[in-house]
């Protein structure tokens, strides 16, 4: 029986809990022993976990890296011990790309672009947009901002009038949106949130302000969790970009290919698409998370 080590960032969101669940259940389904380690958002804990996986002699490692840099050394140790490493949900920057087997992840920049493109189409390229950013410094936040920004730049009529961090949470999302509404009021045409939770918070703030989210102010976000679909069914959220956390099957496929000596793609890209209100009702039941 083979043992796989999985170093997860934490459990800061429902999205991540779904990812963890997916990998755990896949391991069970395929008959692997899974060593799970929660890093409580700290890279140093992930490095420690990988070291201890190596010391325990696992057969493969799945890593959801908290940050892109700083993995060279510990991955060298893994390589020296002949343990394949699969990255899930984000990439890393290493000098030697052979240090890991494969990366299974979405393209965050692309997600931002999708959201931007949809909004441009919906508003005919004219909109005052407020942006709710993810936690400052987090890779998805940086990329989703960048991707969205690239799109918006191409439309002179579109402008991001305010951009603040909502720290990925509903509470903060609501508070920041309240402040935006106080400052700009009805001049706001659209909200772009880096994740669904903040969008849901913003929706509440808009309602309390006396406007109709989804109509007076368009709301677009990323992740595609079930609650977001519910909000679309209710007509309060306009669109959400998929970012699928159920990476377990792909990750184990990659590991098994490596065990069998087959070549694996360096980046197994998750195909993300944007979901809009019209389709929400029929899709909602198929959402797993």
């Amino acid at each position, binding site marked *: 029986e083979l043992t796989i080590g999985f170093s997860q960032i934490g459990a*800061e969101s429902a999205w991540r809990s779904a990812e963890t669940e997916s990998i755990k259940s896949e391991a069970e389904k395929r008959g692997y022993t899974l060593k799970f380690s929660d890093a409580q958002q700290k890279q140093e804990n992930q490095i420690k976990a990988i070291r201890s996986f190596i010391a325990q002699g696992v057969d493969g490692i799945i890593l959801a890296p908290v940050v892109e840099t700083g993995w060279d050394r510990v991955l060298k140790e893994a390589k020296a011990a002949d343990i394949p490493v699969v990255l899930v949900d984000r990439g890393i920057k290493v000098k030697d790309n052979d240090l890991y087997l494969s990366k299974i992840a979405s393209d965050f920049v692309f997600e931002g672009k999708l959201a931007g493109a949809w909004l441009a189409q919906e508003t005919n390229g004219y909109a005052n947009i407020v942006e709710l950013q993810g936690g400052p410094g987090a890779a998805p936040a940086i990329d989703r901002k960048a991707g969205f920004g690239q799109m918006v730049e191409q439309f002179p009529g579109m402008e991001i009038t305010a951009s603040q961090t909502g720290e990925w949470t509903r509470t903060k999302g609501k508070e920041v949106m309240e*402040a935006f509404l*106080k400052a700009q009021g009805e001049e706001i045409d659209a909200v772009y949130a880096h994740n669904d939770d903040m969008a849901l*918070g913003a929706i509440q703030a808009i309602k309390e302000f006396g406007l109709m989210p989804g109509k007076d102010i368009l709301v677009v976000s990323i992740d595609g969790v079930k609650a977001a679909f519910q909000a679309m069914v209710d007509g309060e959220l306009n669109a959400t970009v998929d970012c699928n956390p159920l990476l377990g099957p792909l990750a184990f496929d990659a590991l098994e290919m490596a065990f069998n000596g087959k070549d694996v793609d360096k980046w197994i890209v998750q195909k993300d698409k944007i979901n809009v209100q019209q389709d929400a009702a029929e899709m909602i039941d198929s959402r797993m998370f």
Partner: protein
Amino acid sequence: MQSRLFWPIFVLLLLLAFNLINDPSFFAIEIKQGRLFGSVIDILNRAAPIALLALGMTLVIATGGIDLSVGAVIAISGAVCAYLIQNEIVTSTPLIILAGIGVALIAGLWNGILVSILGIQPIIATLILMVAGRGIAQLITGGQILTFDHVGFEFIGGGTLFGIPFSIVLVVLTYGVTFLVLRKTALGLFIASIGANPTASYFAGIREPQIKILVYMFSGLCAGLAGMILTSDIQGADANNAGLWSELDAILAVVVGGTALTGGRYYIGPTLIGVLILQTMTTTILTNGLPVQFTHIVKAAVVILVMLIMSPQFRGELNRLRTNKTKEII
């Protein structure tokens, strides 16, 4: 007493004045949908959870302790309420609230026992629950954000009483009752006494363990209330993020209000002002569209400036500089 409140209020007014210059409609309050509406109301509303935390924290700090677990207790009480509602275990609002308060009190009791009976240093004793508490909350929610619809419970964070958001009413009530209890019983005296000199208080016959347990339970209670406001406000319990790092904000508010972390004398009114200063600052930063990268730096600068203005030593030096200058001119 007067001078205690003077500088914090001065600083608060300064911040408000800045906002007024920036946005002349800052103090405008209108009635929308039977509810008071305006920036000032928003600030009060947003400040409510921290105001509650800071109240409990003030008393804990007065006894010479500290409570790092309040953020986790917020998560636990919110999770318990949301769990009960979502699974339709309990449907009556008072019972849900009682459950939320109950777990918060148990959490406080645990802290109190660790500190006063086992004699563990408060920062570590409450660190234990700070770490484990969030795990317990996640255990309850299963790592999900538990959302719910419950008209009664949503009133806590979203309802209004005579047009005033209920959370503000709750804060006023809690502060009022606490103030009365501290005034009309000897509890206030005992708390300050324990914090100022535990040995002498013990010799004078004050039962330190009981008082300390009571105070930590009160802090738990406040955190529980705050947790219910936050949960009810977003109609969902987010075990991982609810109240994250809010213990630091609460402590900050207490100290800005002039209560020393070494224990002893404490000031409830100034603590409330401290909370308002912090929330006004946060809201100001948000409304003025400061780039995300700079928010931390601005916050740091404002905090230090505020504290410097309140420091008698600093004002003394400024005065001396000024008088020297005028002398030179003459």
